[in-house]
């Protein structure tokens, strides 16, 4: 069986159109790398359960028809942003909104817009090369030494695809200087009835003693796809917290890589994914313990209904010499229907001696005893299902690293959950 392939010729032609003729050396280099590697296929171990064919199809169609001028900010952007008190940076259809510089100044951070990426993508991250080839403009942000930001930094990644397929590239490089503390919300939404593919690449560096709390809330429209790569470098005594809420879209693939490079660093990764009819959500997490002592925690929960397909692969690698590592991984899944499927794979690779590691994964159905108990208290079956399902996800929501987001996340998750339970029936 031949797998779908990205049309490099069409891509090159599209870049030429966008760049108005000339292709810069950095883009040319990324293009050449992409030509060599292609996008991952299901023959790659890391992509075994996630077929990029629909994404390749959208991309090829977009390359052929690309109209790079279409960057209007969808009208719902303002109302979404106004609901959360954050310093907002709107990235609409892959283009950074013009008020970014002013907002950065208000937020107390240093912002530079970048339109080129010189560094090659890491091995196996060909999507980052695609991102570099097609990037319109990205953000380089520095949080100054010992800064305490008063509001979360909000990145509203908003896309609209009507009529023709849409494609957008998001790139953020975030540098949190030693001793600085910040909160970040990455909020993905989209509208429109045409297929859309968003490809985001975020690089985060945490200096000595820096602390970042990160939330990704993905609630894209049906038929829309997202690949999200987040690479985190942690120095001595830095703290990173990440919570991912994947609710919408038809295909979502997240790659979260954390490199614990300094002693005393800790990282706490959590996520809740809700998938219903025709949804595929894949979370790949990798934590490299390079030196000890350091702590990593992974706790992910999934709720699946209808014919949903999810993948959870959490890896912790304890390298030679990383003594004093404390690593935990847990993945729990609730299947609301027999047609749903989860591939759960916690992995530990340990090459050091003094370590404390544990991992576990569970897949189960709703507890019939608990369901009956609630019904004998007068609660309708559907409501009882919703209450128990919500309770299952609550352990992730209650640990949300950004307090100010709890209400909106709870509300968004609840709405999605109700739809899912109706789906499941």
């Amino acid at each position, binding site marked *: 069986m031949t797998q779908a392939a990205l049309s490099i010729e069409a891509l090159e032609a599209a870049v030429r159109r966008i760049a108005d003729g000339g292709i810069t050396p950095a883009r040319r280099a990324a293009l050449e790398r992409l030509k060599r590697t292609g996008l991952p296929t299901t023959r790659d171990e890391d992509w075994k359960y996630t077929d990029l064919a629909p994404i390749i199809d959208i991309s090829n169609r977009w390359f052929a028809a690309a109209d790079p001028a279409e960057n209007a900010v969808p009208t719902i952007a303002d109302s979404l942003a106004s609901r959360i008190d954050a310093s907002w940076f709107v990235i609409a259809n892959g283009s950074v909104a013009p008020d970014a510089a002013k907002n950065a100044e208000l937020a107390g951070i240093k912002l530079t817009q970048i339109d080129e990426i010189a560094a090659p993508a890491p091995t196996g991250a060909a999507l980052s090369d695609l991102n570099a080839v097609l990037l319109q403009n990205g953000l380089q942000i520095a949080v100054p030494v010992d800064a305490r930001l008063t509001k979360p930094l909000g990145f509203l990644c908003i896309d609209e695809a009507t009529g023709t397929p849409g494609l957008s590239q998001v790139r953020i490089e975030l540098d949190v200087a030693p001793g600085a503390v910040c909160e970040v919300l990455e909020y993905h939404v989209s509208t429109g009835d045409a297929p859309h593919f968003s490809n985001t690449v975020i690089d985060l560096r945490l200096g000595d003693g820096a602390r970042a709390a990160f939330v990704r809330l993905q609630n894209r429209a049906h038929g829309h796809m997202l690949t999200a790569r987040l690479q985190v470098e942690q120095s001595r005594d830095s703290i990173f917290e990440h919570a991912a809420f994947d609710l919408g879209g038809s295909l979502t693939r997240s790659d979260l890589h954390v490199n614990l490079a300094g002693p005393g660093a800790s990282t706490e990764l959590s996520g809740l994914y809700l998938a219903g009819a025709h949804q595929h959500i894949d979370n790949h997490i990798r934590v490299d313990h390079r030196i000890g002592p350091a702590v990593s925690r992974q706790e992910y929960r999934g709720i699946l209904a209808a014919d949903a397909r999810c993948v959870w692969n959490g890896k912790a690698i304890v390298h030679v010499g990383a003594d004093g590592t404390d690593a935990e991984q847990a993945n729990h899944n609730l299947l609301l229907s027999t047609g749903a499927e989860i591939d759960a794979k916690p992995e530990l690779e340990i090459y050091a001696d003094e370590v404390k590691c544990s991992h576990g994964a569970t897949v189960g159905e709703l*507890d019939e*005893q*608990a369901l*009956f*108990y*609630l*019904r*004998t*208290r*007068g*609660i*309708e*079956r559907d*409501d*009882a299902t919703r*209450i*128990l399902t*919500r*309770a*299952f996800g*609550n*352990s992730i929501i209650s640990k949300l690293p950004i307090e100010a987001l709890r209400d909106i996340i709870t509300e968004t998750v609840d709405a999605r959950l109700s739809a899912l339970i109706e789906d499941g029936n």
Partner: protein
Amino acid sequence: MLDIRDLQVRTGDTAILRGVSLTISAGEVHAIMGPNGSGKSTLAQVIAGRDDYEVTSGSITFDGIDLFDLAPEERARAGIFLGFQYPVEIPGVNNAYLLKAAVNARRKTNGESEIDAFEFLKLAKEKMALLGMDPKFLNRGVNEGFSGGEKKRNEILQMAMLEPRLAILDETDSGLDIDALRAVAEGVNALRSPDRAIVLVTHYQRLLDYVEPDHVHVLFDGRIVRSGDKSLAIDLEAKGYEWVREAASG
């Protein structure tokens, strides 16, 4: 109020109830006693609507309505309450949330508006004081990490808040120390009224010292083998279930 006729229930190939008939009228307190495995809990669960069992024959009506036509939640809203022998732990669901949802489900059926938050809290705290429960239990997960006695008190709290017309308490007395037993008994006695009925499913006579039954039935091997007044419970305590076994076979 409750009329059970020739109820036969099985699970898989095993017959559990082999023809139980029982009539319970408003204002009465019935005790159903029997050794382990006699079918007491199954009877309680079938009345509440558990569908793990197969009802092969017989009927249960509540105020003339066929209970088999009603889902468990509809039975609850009609005024039937089951206090569980093993109350289920539901981490992540707030105890106050469940209480309020249950109260509101009942009120909705009665055509009443939702309970006011302040009124709810006042009422819940009042009932908890009566049961010797710390108000902090309102904010815990339902039965999460509760001791055996705390779970049973929590069942009685739910009953007190819901004010059911028919309360079936399945071994609510088992595993309780004397203080908890007194508190539970007080909760049950507070509910006694001419328009309510209470069924105490129990293994021992102990609870009946505090809640005096009008009728006592002995369930043995899926059948009611003896019925009488409270003196039957005392006889049973003195002579043991062996006495019933002999009577049943003879």
